[in-house]
């Protein structure tokens, strides 16, 4: 646990030692502003809630999160520091969790910095702040899901661009599997299959959380999802270490 904290600290400091963290946060804020006010019709709707803000998050994360996840392990492999890290007295789970948490906290910081939107909506109307808090939590959990996929893909290769593309592709599958288009295309299939596909989608679970319904099952979905992909990361790292 102690070593996980040390790795977490190093990784987080690493994001802020380079322009990466700042670029990520600025682009994230600009994009979420555009999505909310331009495309989401924040003012036009005339409703005091943050639905237009949150409903674009899966699509925003689809490209933003792989960008911070892609270097997690690929860079370590490329520079050879993985050999240094893995011969220090740290366990593989310390390293996997420490790195994941650092990236997750970075995405959390970016998310928290969208607070002016929350202030705005409180100034303009009288929103249900409980729903907004739940939606923030759901959004952060979803970011964790994207990141865990990214961690595993980054462990697959020493090329971070390949890791980025793989992550986007797999994240897309997990987002789109809950969209109308995919579910309609599966109309021929048995209902259980359609339900199973929908149940694996981020959209399905995020939608209910962002409406303020903090269902334990949705939270569990993300927690288990993150855990599974991180476990897969550890296995991939172990296998790929030799090459």
């Amino acid at each position: 646990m102690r070593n996980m904290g040390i790795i977490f600290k190093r990784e987080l400091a690493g994001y802020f030692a380079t322009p990466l963290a700042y670029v990520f946060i600025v682009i994230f804020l600009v994009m979420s502003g555009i999505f909310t006010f331009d495309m989401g019709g924040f003012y036009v709707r005339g409703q005091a809630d943050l639905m237009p803000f949150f409903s674009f998050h899966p699509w925003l994360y689809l490209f933003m999160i792989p960008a911070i996840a892609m270097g997690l392990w690929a860079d370590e492999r490329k520079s050879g520091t993985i050999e240094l890290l893995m011969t220090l007295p740290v366990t593989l789970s310390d390293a996997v969790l420490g790195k994941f948490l650092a990236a997750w906290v970075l995405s959390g910081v970016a998310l928290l910095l969208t607070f002016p939107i929350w202030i705005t909506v409180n100034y303009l109307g009288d929103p249900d702040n409980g729903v907004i808090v739940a939606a923030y939590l759901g959004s952060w959990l979803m970011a964790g899901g994207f990141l865990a996929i990214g961690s595993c893909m980054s462990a697959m290769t020493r090329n971070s661009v390949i890791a980025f593309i793989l992550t986007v592709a797999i994240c897309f599958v997990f987002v789109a599997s809950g969209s109308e288009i995919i579910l309609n295309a599966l109309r021929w299939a048995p209902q259980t299959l359609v339900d199973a596909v929908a149940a694996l989608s981020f959209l399905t679970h995020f939608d209910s959380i962002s409406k303020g319904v903090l269902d334990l099952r949705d939270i569990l979905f993300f927690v288990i999802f993150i855990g599974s992909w991180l476990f897969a990361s550890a296995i991939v790292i172990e296998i790929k270490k030799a090459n």
Partner: protein
Amino acid sequence: MIEISHLTKKFDSFTAVDDLSFKVEEGEVLGFLGPNGAGKSTTMKIITGFLGATSGFVTVHGHDISRDPLAVKSLIGYLPEGAPSYPDMTVLEFLDFIAEVRGFSGEQKRQRIAKVIREVELAEVCHKTIETLSKGFKRRVGLAQAIIHDPKVLILDEPTDGLDPNQKHQVRQLIRNLARDRIVIISTHILEEVSAVCTRAIIIAAGRIVADGTPKELEARSHLFGAVSIQLTQDFDLATALEGVEEVADIEPSDEERRRFIIIPAPGKQIFGKVLDRVQSEHWPVAEFHLVEGLLEHFFRSVTSQTAASQPRTSRGARAPHQSANQQQG
């Protein structure tokens, strides 16, 4: 003590390390030699716990690396090949990170870092990011992280690669100072380094040990041990002039210089004095006369290169005088 027993590592069908067994005791500085791809780095990676072995075991001070990796890893200080470190961090941040992972905190951590910065002479760059450093400084940062916890076992993969002669000298001095009461294993291509710092050398080729002994012992096993190098000023028939000296086994022309010959003694015989007597009494046209140097290199080549090993030793004796005659004509 490090004990390596029947260690084998296979990558798919390729066997990188093949049934390797040896022990290293405290106070030994072991030079790990071998051509590229012989399995040096792979063996080091297994000892340090980075790679798992296909079969066999490694114990460090009684701890098995596969059963108790954290105990072994905390005993070892390791400089991986190429001295990797995090390029975005400053030297101080990097050493701070390593010291924390090694379990130091507060005042103790500060002292460790200060000590290691002094030992490896990093003071002038300690606030610079590692990516901006020269190769020599990067290597020293790698050394610093390896010795920060005063490890019982120090494993250095090509510690002087890419350093200038002064820096090489410095690093060797450092290794010699560190060697007391601990185990040091270094891999290197530079054979003079082995004679300079190692108390023992193991040569491996194709994953197997082909020689193991002190550098002096290995030198003595070279067929050029006690051989004399002679540089003539004009054409001269050495073979005839040396007739009757039965300690001389062979005369080889040097492939580096014209009119330079290597006079090889019969196993276990000394020829330097006898030949020198003849040179002086018979007034040979000699410009240079000395014992052959770089014996370790000769020995290394003879045990690691396939062609040299497969060439029958006796055929040289028959061919050498003939060759030297040709060279004199040309």
